[in-house]
């Protein structure tokens, strides 16, 4: 076991004395302000996408994708990656605040009005806002994967493939 000694006993005593004689303000708890939640959320999206990529790699490395159930799981992971990319872009564009104006006179009559010069970016935002078109297929593929795996497990073949 290695012992790390930065100061000796004398050094430590001198440091403590200096602290007592010349005190400074100490900020023990940090305030978490406005954009931090968004950053964390975006990081979570990136992390989710990355983990799905790892899952695809792992499935392909073990050549499990030859089996229908595992192949469906791979598709689920792929759609989750696409969904994460989609939502990442959407959150980023929504956070900018200079692309469009949302008017909500009523639920059924709400609209988006792009600012001049950035219409195509607003259009990208509009399309990416329909993220369920990606995450619903992802979860449907996951369900389909589990369904096939369950059928194969009843036939007693999956364990061999997964081992």
């Amino acid at each position: 076991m290695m012992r790390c000694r930065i100061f000796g006993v004398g050094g430590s005593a001198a440091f403590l004395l200096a602290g007592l004689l010349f005190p400074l303000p100490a900020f023990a708890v940090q305030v978490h302000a406005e954009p931090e939640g968004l950053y964390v959320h975006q990081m979570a999206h990136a992390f989710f996408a990355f983990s799905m990529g790892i899952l695809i790699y792992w499935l392909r490395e073990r050549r499990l994708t030859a089996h229908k159930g595992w192949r469906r799981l791979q598709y689920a992971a792929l759609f989750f990656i696409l969904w994460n990319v989609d939502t990442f872009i959407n959150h980023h564009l929504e956070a900018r605040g200079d692309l469009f104006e949302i008017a909500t006179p009523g639920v059924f009559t709400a609209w988006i009005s792009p600012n001049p010069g950035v219409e195509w970016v607003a259009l990208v935002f509009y399309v990416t806002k329909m993220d369920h078109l990606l995450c619903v297929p992802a979860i449907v593929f996951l369900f389909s994967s589990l369904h096939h795996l369950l059928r194969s497990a009843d036939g007693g073949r999956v364990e061999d493939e997964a081992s």
Partner: protein
Amino acid sequence: MILPMLPIWIIDFAGSSLMILFSFLCVHHATKLRKRDEDNIIWTYLIWVSYALVGFAISRGVGHIAKILLMMAGRRETWDILRPFSGGMNTLMFALVGSTTLFFKRVWRVYQQMAQDKAALEQAHEKLLYLNRNLEDLVAERSRELVRSETKYRRIFEASRDMIAITAGTGKLLDMNPAGKRMLGIEDGAVDQGELRLPDFFARPEDWEGLREQLQRHCYVNDAEIDLVTRDGKELSVLLSASAECEIGEKTETFHFVAKDISQRKAMQQQLLQADKLASIGQLAAGIAHEINNPLSIILGYTQLLIRDEPERSEKYADLRTIEKHARTCKIIVEDLLSFSRTTHTRKETASLHDTIDEVLNVVRHHLDLDRVNLVKEFDPDVPSLVLDRNKIKQVFMNLIMNAKQAIAKEGEIRIRTRYVPTEGTEGVVHVDVEDTGCGIQPKDLSRIFDPFFTTKSTGEGTGLGLSVSYGIVKNHGGDILVQSEPGKGSTFTVVLPVTAEDEAFS
């Protein structure tokens, strides 16, 4: 450009509902999967992912649906309160699904290792159980196998007709089979005392050194011809194979020897060589004898004619007599040579061998009694009548008995033994041993005693044709003469004569 929000909200509402529905269906399926095999880590992972997705679908879906419903109800401020919770929960669920997936890869490796270890443990456990249940039977079976193996190899060791010996690297005898003990004249128990060394039985110490060096270098020796000396001083030739076993851990070396006695084979080879040599000499002698016989007959004839005309007391008469005497001597020698080369005419008849030998003994008995040589007869009553030239066979036994007497000089014993030896496929053979207690024959002379003109007697005592003539006569009868001799102990000449039917003999 105006982009309506309604399609987005419709997709959000339907999508969120479907997300919630399918996430629960996923949990249901994953739970069923896990029930199939609760130890399978993959199903565990899928359950975690499904639960996390339920959390994600509810936090997000409920958020979206609640947002739409609250907006429709004009309760935007309520949504503003709920929104951070929905978002926070959402973030948490992504992280959970991501972490589960990343950790799963690591957990999977650990699970694989555990599964392998478990399988190995189960296998070991099964084996242990099997051994535990069947230990007694297995031990008994193994013991039986060992006993069988031990018996098999022990039988080979004990029953081998060749010597099998195990020695330490120093040559100390560790074990030897009965055949080896008999071969070397070692009494039982002498090997166990641990004082015997194999090199002590080597006729030449350098042979042992050479063997040992070769064994240490190559670990084996094949078919080395070695001369051994038995405990009672008898020399024998063996064909020896050996191998070395090196126990590096114990720092000991062991040599294994297998030795086959080839003394008889060597003797037979010698005899074959001898027979071949004698046959050549016989042909040569026959040629010379024929060439000399005619001039000798003329010399003898003319000498006898001249003698007839000379007065008996004259000097010339005495000279002619001397010529006649020496010419006759020459003629006898020539006739002996012809006998040896088997070119003389033989008159075979069915006769009793014992009677023939007795006739010879009657002639020599008085001569033997004078020198106190005891004569012992051991005649086998089963010996049948043989077809032989009695006169020539008498000449053979006369030669052998006189040689035996001369070897004894004074006081000793001559034993004449006959025995009938039946053989498969033929009518058998008769062995006649002429055994004496005389001075014996030196080993260096053994191979030459049947050579014409070879004699150990002093000049004038013998022509050296006796044994060669006897050899020729016996060969002419389809037989053989064998000799065994030990210097200082005596010799045994064995005449082997075949038993043949009369019509066969004359055919």
